[in-house]
């Protein structure tokens, strides 16, 4: 079993070490995810109902009011 984990670790380690085009791809992936989650999600895309209402009941009431024109 320990061989399995060591082999898996080595596969990932060597895979990352031997990357060519992959280095650029990983850089793009990391920058993209950082922008998405640490900038866009955090500052520009709040969950409106979770932000404005504390409980599930309040959120349900807010949606009911919105959908029934109150």
């Amino acid at each position, binding site marked *: 079993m320990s061989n399995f984990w060591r082999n898996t670790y080595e596969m990932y380690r060597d895979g990352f070490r031997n990357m060519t085009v992959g280095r650029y791809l990983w850089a*793009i992936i990391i920058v993209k995810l950082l922008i*998405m989650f640490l900038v866009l999600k955090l500052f520009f895309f709040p969950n409106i109902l979770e932000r404005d209402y504390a409980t599930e009941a309040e959120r349900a009431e807010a*949606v009911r009011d919105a959908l029934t024109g109150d």
Partner: protein
Amino acid sequence: MDNLITTVDWSRWQFAMTAIYHWLFVPLTLGLSVIVAIMETISYRKKSAEWLRITKFWMTLLAINFAIGVATGIILEFEFGTNWSNYSWFVGDIFGAPLAIEGILAFFMEATFGAVMFFGWGKVSERFHLASTWLTAIGASISALWILVANSWMQYPVGMEFDPAQMRNVMDDFWALFSPVAINKFFHAVLSGWALAGAFVIAVSSYFLWKGSNREFAIRSIKVGAWTGLAGLLLTMYTGDGSAVEVTKTQPMKLAAMEGLYEGHAPQSLVAVGVVNPDKKWNNDEPEYLFDISLPYGLSILARHDYNAFVPGIKNIIEGVDVNEAGDTIYTVSYAERIARGKTAQEALKNYGIAMEQHDTVAMNKALTALEADYPYFGYGYFNNVEEAIPPVALTFYSFRVMVILGSFFLLFFIACLVWVYKSEDTFSKARWMQLISMIALPLMYLCSQSGWIVAEVGRQPWTVQDLLPVGAAISNIPSSSVIVTFWMFAVIFTLLLIAEVGIMVHWINKGVKQSL
């Protein structure tokens, strides 16, 4: 109200832009992963070093597309919570469950087997590597399944019950989500990815031939690409036929918009090419088309698999008129009545909320009974006139024709590639005009693929959830300025990603051109 309209419009544009960008990456991953798996299978069976090199080249392009495209769909989920909060709440766990399964499956299957596929050469057995490549391809398709199930539920909401206390649709039959609408949509969308990837492989291989490089590599790749593309396209056409039948049953207004049809006939012809009349309204006598070439019986066969069947137009649907299989006129629920019953349902929901606050269970039950009676028409209560329930006809009509005409072109294209390349590899590899057509065909295939989604999504307007929640009610109470800001942020980010994708791919392809593959 003006602010609400602009918020709705900007949010729709933002969602459309995000979805279109996302769909640039997804179909190539779906199809190219299968093509790579086929190539590796050939390499494994033939013990061929040439096929192994071919596999690794295309696998690198798959990696580039996968890496740039991965997680672009998460942006859509951000938009649900911010721009479409009423919608997000209203659909409850029905939308959440498939997306959660998709996230888990995508992570475990694609991350695990994708890692073996990209990093496992020489580290695992050839057989296990091949299995991992296939499982990565299958995992990508299964991920798509859950997204498409969720999308199909929006077009054909089944398997749920609305709970007015929670203000959510609660799933009561998970398996109902796998409706014929969902199954057709899944295969139609995923298999179209095979066709797109086939066109991609042929286009890139033709570039090699154009440059006079790696002829054998290009010819072998074109054969696999053309076979996969042809199989994908034929199956896409078959499932498209199934989708048309389902749309006729579940979203007849969408079908009428696809055809620009206002008054149906039995039998009903299908417009092959035409120009819709912009002055045509559902209730005036203007002609439907300024010009058209139609195929007799075409729409009757397409929509109802009966060459003599009646197909209702927009006016018929609004007036609640249809014709059954026996040829008798039948009356469905007219849109005027739907609007009235929708308003009754909304009033009942409002009364339910008041009764709940007062802990008046008798009044709650009375309101619930009234709500349940008219709930199937709930969303129509937001309209003041029937015209608001008609989708944009021209855009749906033209998108449908772009999809079908280009789809037909690609059927001939794949067949021509296969016949020619098997008949004479030599003349095929020297035909520069064919190589030029192959390269030009790639953007046309993307246009075809995107047009399909425009038909599906524009044709179902104004609904976010069919019959239950129109876009105007689904929107959050947020200023349009915030949506405008994020719209342009996304436009910039996605454009940069696309430039990066194309740049890295072109670099890698040119590298391949200069070396022996």
